């Protein structure tokens, strides 16, 4: 058998193996489509994206609320000082606790 024939045979084997590996994928895909599994996975991914978007919106709303509370607390602190309350009697502002995630 010549070298060219060997190369041809190897190429044919690669093509055959590739073709054979496609069959289970095609069967699985068609099965998934018929069982609505593909649709379920799509919906699940959509809901994951939706959940992430909701979490982001909630974090934005909380941050906005926190800023407004900080402004309000600052005003109260100013009013207390204006009314003559000593600075050491005014409770100190709680410190931001850094976690590993937001450090």
């Amino acid at each position: 058998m010549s070298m060219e024939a060997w190369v041809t045979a190897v190429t044919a084997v690669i093509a055959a193996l590739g073709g054979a590996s496609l069959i289970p994928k095609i069967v699985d895909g068609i099965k998934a489509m018929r069982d609505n599994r593909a649709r379920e996975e799509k919906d699940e991914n959509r809901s994951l994206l939706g959940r992430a978007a909701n979490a982001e919106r909630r974090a934005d709303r909380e941050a906005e609320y926190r800023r407004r509370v900080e402004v309000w607390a600052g005003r109260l602190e100013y009013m207390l000082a204006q009314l003559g309350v000593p600075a050491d009697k005014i409770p100190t502002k709680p410190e931001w606790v850094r976690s590993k995630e937001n450090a």
Partner: protein
Amino acid sequence: MSGVARAVRMISEPRAINIAQIILYAIAATAGLAAAVGALNPLFTSTTVGSWIIVTVGVILSIGGFSGGYAVIAGLWWVERISLIILGVSWIMLLPAALFFAFSTHNSAIWLVIALLCTAVLSLFIRYRRIDWAYLDPTR
């Protein structure tokens, strides 16, 4: 909204990656069609195993390229996986002829072709694996 903008919006997120993937499939399909009609006939196949291989690879490449492009636009992950396997097989089919040419002719330029083939196959493998990850799932 213009037609182009509407077409781009149809493509699922992450859009930049999926557009690049569609371009990759379009290039494969175009190269495949050109090879299938005999417009491309590299020396390393015609002088070793014969020109039939490039026509076969061209047909397979164009099938993989067209089906892959459609799969990304439609968000059909399982069809895209099949397209990736088809494309991978077609590139790998060229390797034996390229290696034979490299060792029999000592033409150093063929090693560039072999490197490009390996790069193409690995990039397809990366896409195949990334479909498993939710953030790169091309579903819409």
